[in-house]
């Protein structure tokens, strides 16, 4: 053991550094940031039988799917939707160093949706020669970010992460779009995916089919293989893509768009992203 004084001296800068890194790293922004990290939800099961089952969900931001090795996903925008569309509770919520986790009681048969939705503004500018970064709501932007700041850049980010769980027979009550940001409208039910069988999904931007969108699909277990094996597909005129799953596993499907359809005049650019974790059975 080091003497207390020395330990404090050693620890404080380290903690400060960790804190600084934590603040600088766009934990919440990751579903939406331009960084190469991947944000995901990982349910313990997606197909259930019997009454009153539970699922545990891990939520993290990482490089490799689905390993928690970088940052936990913040759960501020977490929502759980029961088959009839009513909100349900996430229980035993906890955030650790590398992942967040929570439980959902699947109290009724049908398809449940678990989503983490973010919608916020990001600003960067220079002040007294120093770069400044800011994140918050439109109201706070007006208060806290000087309008005539040097090199001011304001971006709106809308992110949506989803996972689906079905007990018994699949239902489609939770598969309705909100009309905000980038969303997935399953054509094939997301809990009815089988290796070797084609599945299709429609992508909507603000509720309208989004054609020409590049969609990336990556199977989990990246750590144990050399080749990423990402599948890419581009949505057709109706916003649809079709994918034939090469093998069973947990897959991450992701897409994002940039445009200028922002919710506030001060933001010149919007980034909308969507990612879901889909389980493909043998």
């Amino acid at each position, binding site marked *: 053991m080091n003497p207390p004084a020395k330990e404090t001296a050693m620890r404080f800068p380290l903690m400060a550094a960790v804190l600084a890194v934590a603040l600088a790293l766009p934990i919440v922004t990751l579903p939406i940031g331009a960084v190469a990290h991947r944000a995901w939800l990982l349910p313990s099961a997606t197909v259930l*039988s*019997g*009454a009153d089952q539970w699922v545990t969900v891990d939520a993290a931001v990482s490089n490799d799917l689905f390993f928690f090795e970088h940052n936990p996903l913040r759960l501020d925008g977490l929502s759980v939707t029961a088959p009839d569309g009513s909100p349900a509770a996430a229980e035993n919520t906890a955030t650790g160093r590398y992942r967040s986790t929570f439980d959902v009681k699947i109290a009724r048969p049908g398809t449940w949706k678990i989503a983490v939705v973010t919608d916020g503004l990001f600003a960067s500018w220079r002040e007294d020669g120093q770069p400044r970064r800011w994140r918050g709501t439109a109201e706070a932007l007006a208060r806290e970010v000087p309008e005539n700041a040097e090199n001011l850049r304001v971006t709106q980010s809308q992110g949506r992460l989803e996972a689906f769980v079905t007990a*018994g*027979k*699949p239902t489609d009550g939770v598969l309705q779009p909100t009309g905000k940001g980038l969303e997935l409208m399953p054509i094939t039910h997301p809990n*009815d995916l089988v290796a070797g069988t084609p599945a299709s999904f429609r992508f909507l931007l603000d509720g309208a089919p989004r054609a020409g969108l590049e969609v990336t699909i990556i199977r989990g277990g990246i750590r144990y293989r050399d080749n990423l094996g990402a599948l890419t597909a581009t949505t057709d005129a109706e916003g649809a893509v079709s994918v034939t799953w090469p093998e069973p596993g947990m897959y991450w499907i992701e897409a994002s768009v940039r445009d200028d359809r922002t919710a506030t005049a001060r933001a010149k650019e919007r980034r909308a992203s969507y990612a879901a974790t889909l389980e493909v059975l043998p």
Partner: protein
Amino acid sequence: MRKFLTVAAGGLAAGPAAAADIAIKVEIPRLTVAEYHRPYVAVWIERPDQSVAATLAVWYDLRLRNNEGTKWLKDLRQWWRRTGRELDMPVDGISGATRPVGAHTLAFAGDHPTLEPLPPGEYRLAVEAAREVGGREMVRIPFRWPPLKAESATAQGKDELGAVTLDIEP
């Protein structure tokens, strides 16, 4: 089996087939494993497009309180996806307790409420087994219904199932 298809084609649109009897023998193999649980088994009849015509039997852990044995029915993956998830188990005449190692026979008379409404045509018997902390296996035996003559066919499982035999009598 193929040659029966042409014979059958003319009769496909007809109503239920005449009475015939089905006997199914399912062998549950003895396995040398550290932790053994009797497998869950589903036995059903499927159409050539793999849709389910009838579930004949589901053996699962019926004795657990609160119907908790149903938690693992999803592990009978094919059966669960094609029909199990539509059912509210237990179902009279279909549900049964898990069976020990050995050969087990299921017999159905042609006028059985499950078989009686089957239109004439090509079918497959499907048997799927899933074992707790073990594996899963499925075998299929094609057959024509109703049979033109007495038929017997066997499919051999490799891991979770032994021999599965289908005997049909006109």
